[in-house]
């Protein structure tokens, strides 16, 4: 609870600081707030407190809160002069991101369906505005509108689902619902099944899984890069945590029922994400599509429910988050210099800025899943998870998709090292260096010695 309070208070303080034109103080205040909430994550570890039956701060919630807060912290560090270029009202954007984060913490810790809904809404409303922060930019406005319409849709599905399940069980409480499933296993109300499917659809919208992914590429491309980074890492992770909390836990007794539709979603997501990413000329759009395919790999954890499912998602999400932050960070640097985010703007980066090129290479290797990086560990755990159920065809399909992934991730590496570009020096600001180095260390460390987070949850 203190985590959410800290984040919310920080958001308000930052808003007021902006009112008094204390622009210099915004970032430090935010960072202090986030670090404090991270400290609360650490101190509440293993306490497993429940708040009024609405939220449960178990280790699952804390671990995911920790990763999302850390990811947000890194993204804030990348804001150096970023929003100033787009708008006068920087404080508002800081506040909105923080509010969104508060919603995310609720999403990872809900124990009651109403909290799920509230969390999703708090997160989303802030994001609708953030996607459109470049008021005079057409793409940004388009992104905002699309995101809002699609988001409203998915909220509708979510609410319908919640209602139907309430109708079947008479409760919003996850524990009660789970109990209902266990005790009435033979005579579950017919309302319950469409409820589960609607919830799945609603959440798939949020995590951008196919065939509910159509908003992702446009929104990711249109939104300012930093917001895209936030959406595709932190928000996505939160969506998965919410998904997992509901399906891996509460709806686990109905696994046989929701597995077939989920399998279809996984295969579609992997295939569409990978194959479309292959044909992109724009780095940012490629990342958007690749994020769809990563959603597919992440859903593997739900196909075979084991004791480690949640933890596997955590490892994968961490690997994906930090590699993506590197990718977006370098993208911002490159775009500031060249003005566009096509693959060609990365040409010759290996010479212009060997450091950034090297870090981005490691990030791409991690996203592609090469050993000794966190991304490999994540993929490995997902494959292992599914192999427990002997789903060979699914894994073979996933391997073929991973091969496609190598192609498009290596496109960037090819551009950076093997092609010559304009000989423009590219400097890395200090804050960027900090973020890139830290993300690099996390990526390699989790790849070499993942034991630290393998048994967290």
């Amino acid at each position: 609870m203190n985590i959410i309070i800290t984040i919310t208070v920080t958001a308000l303080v930052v808003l007021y600081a902006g009112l008094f034109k204390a622009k210099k103080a915004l970032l430090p205040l935010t960072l202090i707030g986030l670090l404090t909430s991270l400290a609360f994550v650490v101190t509440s570890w293993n306490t497993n407190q429940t708040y009024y039956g609405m939220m449960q701060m178990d280790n699952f919630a804390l671990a995911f809160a920790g990763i999302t807060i850390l990811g947000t912290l890194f993204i804030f560090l990348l804001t150096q002069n970023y929003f100033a270029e787009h708008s006068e009202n920087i404080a508002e954007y800081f506040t909105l991101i923080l509010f969104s984060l508060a919603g995310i913490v609720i999403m990872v810790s809900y124990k009651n369906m109403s909290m799920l809904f509230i969390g999703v809404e708090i997160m989303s409303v802030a994001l609708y505005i953030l996607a459109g922060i470049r008021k005079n930019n057409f793409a940004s406005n388009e992104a905002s509108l699309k995101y809002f319409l699609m988001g409203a849709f998915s909220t509708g599905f979510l609410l319908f689902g919640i209602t139907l399940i309430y109708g079947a069980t008479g409760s919003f409480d996850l524990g009660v619902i789970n109990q209902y499933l266990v005790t009435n296993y033979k005579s579950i109300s017919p309302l319950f099944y469409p409820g589960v499917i609607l919830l799945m659809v609603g959440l798939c919208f949020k995590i951008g899984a196919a065939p509910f992914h159509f908003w992702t590429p446009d929104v990711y491309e249109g939104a300012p890069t930093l917001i895209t980074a936030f959406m595709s890492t932190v928000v996505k992770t939160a969506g998965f945590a919410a998904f997992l909390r509901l399906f891996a836990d509460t709806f686990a007794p109905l696994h046989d029922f929701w597995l077939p539709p989920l399998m279809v979603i996984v295969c579609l997501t992997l295939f569409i994400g990978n194959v479309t990413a292959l044909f992109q000329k724009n780095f940012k759009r490629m990342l958007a599509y690749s994020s769809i395919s990563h959603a597919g790999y992440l859903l593997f954890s739900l196909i075979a429910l084991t004791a480690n499912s949640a933890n596997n998602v955590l490892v994968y999400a961490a690997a994906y988050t930090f590699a993506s932050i590197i990718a977006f960070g370098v993208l911002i640097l490159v775009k500031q210099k060249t003005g566009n985010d096509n693959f060609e703007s990365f040409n010759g980066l290996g010479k212009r800025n060997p450091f950034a090129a090297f870090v981005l290479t490691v990030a791409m290797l991690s996203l592609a899943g090469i050993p000794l990086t966190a991304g490999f560990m994540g993929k490995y755990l997902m494959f292992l998870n599914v192999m427990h159920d002997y789903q060979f065809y699914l894994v073979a399909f996933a391997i073929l998709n991973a091969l496609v992934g190598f192609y498009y991730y290596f496109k960037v590496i090819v551009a950076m090292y093997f092609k010559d570009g304009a000989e423009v020096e590219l400097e890395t600001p200090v804050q960027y260096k900090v973020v890139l180095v830290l993300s690099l260390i996390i990526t390699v460390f989790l790849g070499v010695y993942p034991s630290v987070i393998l048994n967290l949850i």
Partner: protein
Amino acid sequence: MEQLLLLLIFLPLVGAVVTAFTGSAAKHVALVSAILSLALTLITVCNFTPDASTQFAVNYPWIQDLGINFHAGIDGISMITVLLTNVLVPIIILSAYQHDYKNSNAFFALILFMQFGLLLVFTAMDAFLFYIGWEAALIPIYFICAIWGGKDRIKVNMKFFVYTIAGSLFMLLGIIYLYLQNPAHNFDIQAFYNLNLDSVQQSWIFWAFFIAFAIKMPVFPFHTWQPDTYTEAPTPGTMLLSGIMLKMGIYGVIRWLLPVAPEGVQQWGNVAIILSIIGVVYASIIAFTQKDAKRLVAYSSIAHVGLISAGIFALNTQGMQGAMVQMLSHGINVVGLFFVLDIIARRMKTNKIAELGGIAKQAPQLAIVFLIIVLGTVALPGTNGFIGEFLLLIGVYQYKVWAGVFAGLSIIFGAVYMFRMYQNIMLGKTNDLTIGFTDIKGSEKVVLYIICALIIVLGVYPKPILHLSEASVQQLIEQVTQKLTSVN
């Protein structure tokens, strides 16, 4: 003694990091690191007892929750491949001395990093560690070939990369499957050996592993990436690929495929041998028609590897022992050949056989060493190639006479196209291009003399090498046949 193996494995990694941060002196640092590794290897060989046991073993828990251990050790089979790696890497680095590579620190650091990966592969006694090494060797060679390679390097190397990683991902699938079958839930090699898999399971395991190894070697029809990649790569890259990396495939078959899935091998070994022999004949015929010397050697390498692979799947001591010696010999010879061609290409700016000729008159020393290397490659008695190919042929012949006959053809073919290449490049009339050819000097001399010495010494007195691996090979064959007889 424990520390010795750790030192042996991690020294190249340390060397790579140090090399990466040195500027123009990178090649010297890399060479020192490689020579230190060689010295350590020689110490290891001296302390090695040539029985069937796994020695210098280290076993540390690495990722305990997943049953992954850092378990490495050296037996006779590993010893040969480790020796091969650490003898060839300094030679390869020295052979790159005359070149001015851009960002040479990155170049040499990648070579050493690859050495680290290779050593992991050759010493791993844990399947997961083996896989890590397998990929850790691939990434650096991809960058070496794609950054410093020829004109078509990007496309060619992408093909190479996706090809090999496709194979290795299916191998990973096989490894995960074995892990799940293992009641102890770890990746230990001994536990994998002791698994009781039925023949259907073993067939699947066979294919999951065989394709990965066949792509790496490469065995027909998985070879299509090889000639282009060899030709486009910078010469040190070609040497690493042909001299050492393809041995990963051969080693993988011996270490993992045969003992883990003997029934699979029994069932499908025929197919593997037929593919290998087709590869031998096919590559030899294509080698005839090549106009580019580097491509010719690339195809000859497919033919040689085909014979080695056939010898292994013949599942007898002669074939296996022949494979061990031939791995070493082929590595030395092919590195020598590529180096000679590199020397010629650097001076003449071409490797087209038709454009060259009469170099022997201008460069008598090169002519002699080149001849010795060619003789070694065509397996003349008294050179290192002979003993390996002889044993391999016996092995294949014992398996099936027709297989031996076809495999034997490869030696004749090999002699023909190799001598023809030598004749057209070195002998004949000196033309306008080759008139300005200067003889070998400096580091070139050192490298070629070392290679020639190795060819002759191993050819005249191969016993120590055969002795190193004999007990381990013996035990492996027994293990496999025992498992097979207990089933039948």
